[in-house]
């Protein structure tokens, strides 16, 4: 009896602690969203009243600098994601499916970029571009982002390849499918959820990266770099608008995919 009561209190205490934790996690998000509606003049620090003006003037302030940086971030994110997903998926399949002589070395090479602090990755690449005389700009940002996204793609896709039943592909071969038919009709569709997850993770990592970008951007500016530079003189509310829009879109995607897979699980459970 006594023990049951104590456990009850413990559970409630834990629930309160966890809820406080959620509040802590969400506080700066709520702040950022709220200040996208602030009727600010130049710097967006003091609350001066509610307005939609910032949402309609994203590309007007500072001659559209916010907008331009956002566009660069999208461009970098898309190109780096495509490159990293292609390269990383190939590595994941090779590691999960084939006997390799240099497996340990390759695994280490993929693991190390994830265990290296971003300053070191950024400074290393910048030193290399400096030595090679490559001018820094959007191109070097894309090269850098592709590099650090590959490892995360490999890890994500490899889990999917490992959980794939080889019998399905064998069945395809038994039914006289050519290797390319087996790949496009069986393997690729089964890997697709993992590949999409890896691509989304890459894009998110690239889009929010600041440190590596800062070392390799030169005069070019991505959204995070714009925010960092603007922090010294005051971040315009339009930056909050862009961050809010991206946030709402991402949350909608996550909740949508959760509902979709929950619905699918239910349907699958119902079919005998």
């Amino acid at each position: 009896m006594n023990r049951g009561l104590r456990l009850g209190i413990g559970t409630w205490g834990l629930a309160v602690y966890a809820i406080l934790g959620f509040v802590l996690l969400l506080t700066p998000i709520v702040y950022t969203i709220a200040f996208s509606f602030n009727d600010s003049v130049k710097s967006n620090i003091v609350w001066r009243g509610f307005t939609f003006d910032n949402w309609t003037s994203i590309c007007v302030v500072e001659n559209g600098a916010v907008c331009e940086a956002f566009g660069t971030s999208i461009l970098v994110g898309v190109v780096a994601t495509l490159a990293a997903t292609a390269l990383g998926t190939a590595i994941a399949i090779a590691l999960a499916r084939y006997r390799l002589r240099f497996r340990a070395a390759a695994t280490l090479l993929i693991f190390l970029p994830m265990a290296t602090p971003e300053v070191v990755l950024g400074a290393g690449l910048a030193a290399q571009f400096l030595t090679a005389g490559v001018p820094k700009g959007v191109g070097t940002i894309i090269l850098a982002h592709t590099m650090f996204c590959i490892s995360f793609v490999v890890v994500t896709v490899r889990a999917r390849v490992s959980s794939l039943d080889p019998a399905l592909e064998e069945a395809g071969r038994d039914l006289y499918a050519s290797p390319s038919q087996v790949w496009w009709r069986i393997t690729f569709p089964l890997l697709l959820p993992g590949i999409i997850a890896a691509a989304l993770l890459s894009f998110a990592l690239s889009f929010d990266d600041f440190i590596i970008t800062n070392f390799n951007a030169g005069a070019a500016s991505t959204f995070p770099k714009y925010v960092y530079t603007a922090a010294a003189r005051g971040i315009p509310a339009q930056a909050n608008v862009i961050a809010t829009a991206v946030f709402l879109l991402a949350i909608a995607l996550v909740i949508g995919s959760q509902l979709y897979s929950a619905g699918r699980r239910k349907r699958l459970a119902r079919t005998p």
Partner: protein
Amino acid sequence: MAFGMIGTSDAPAVADAAPGRRSPVALLLLLPGVAYLALFFVVPFVSLIVTSLKAPDPFGEIGRYVYAFRWENYVEVMTTYWPHIARSFGFAIAATIIALLIGYPIAYFIGVKLRRFPLLQALALVLVIAPFFISFLLRTFAWKQILADEGPVLGVLQSLTILPDDARLTGTAGAVIFGIAYNFIPFMTLPIYTSLERLDLRYLEAGGDLYASPATTFFKVTLPLSMPGVVSGTLLTFIPAAGDYINASSDFLGAPDTAMIGNVIEANFLRVENYPVAASLSIILMGAILLLVGLYIRRAGTKDLV
């Protein structure tokens, strides 16, 4: 492959089913990506080492350096910047502990207590990853405004006379540590959640049946079983935290006297153009992290990291 735990919670721990054939196809698949990593990860690391040993231009031109083997760079950097190095690791360790103290109970709550409510569990997980979807620079800037001299938190603490009237929150070591801890709570929570999610609750019942107090059950059963998650969570927090320079920057939560090693590297590389100093500090940071992480993994006794 503990690092893979983040974002792939529904996948089983990666253990490749006895890889089969040897084939030239494997090399073909592996080569482009591995070559890319060699070119843009390994070679840069080598040029970082080369740069760290360079000497100033004999003609005294600023920002130009010649190839040399000037290992004194390391000695000079260590004697000049040892407070920054110590601060980086001190801040990173403190932030990791705080993130663990906040993240572990959240992970336990979601993974164990919410198990009977799948919808609530999914919602709680979305709340944990929500910070990933909004620029971390803007989140850190939001904390700066919330903790600012005119902000709500300081005012409340002062009116409750917890803090004296002339106290500040931003620009202090405490604010920097708090900011770093905040930024990495999701990285700490998710891997711990992944290992607690699979925890068999009958073990906890067994502990109770054998007259262990809840605390004993936690320390003897739950915590050891969730160690893989704790190890990857602490590494995912500690490694980036030691190199972070946003939180410690004067434009965000820090002040000049809270500068970490990352701030020094950035300033030397991008503003002063003292590349050898930036490069040798990067190498020192990397070496120290590898050393600490190696010791930690050996103590924590997890082998399945790579």
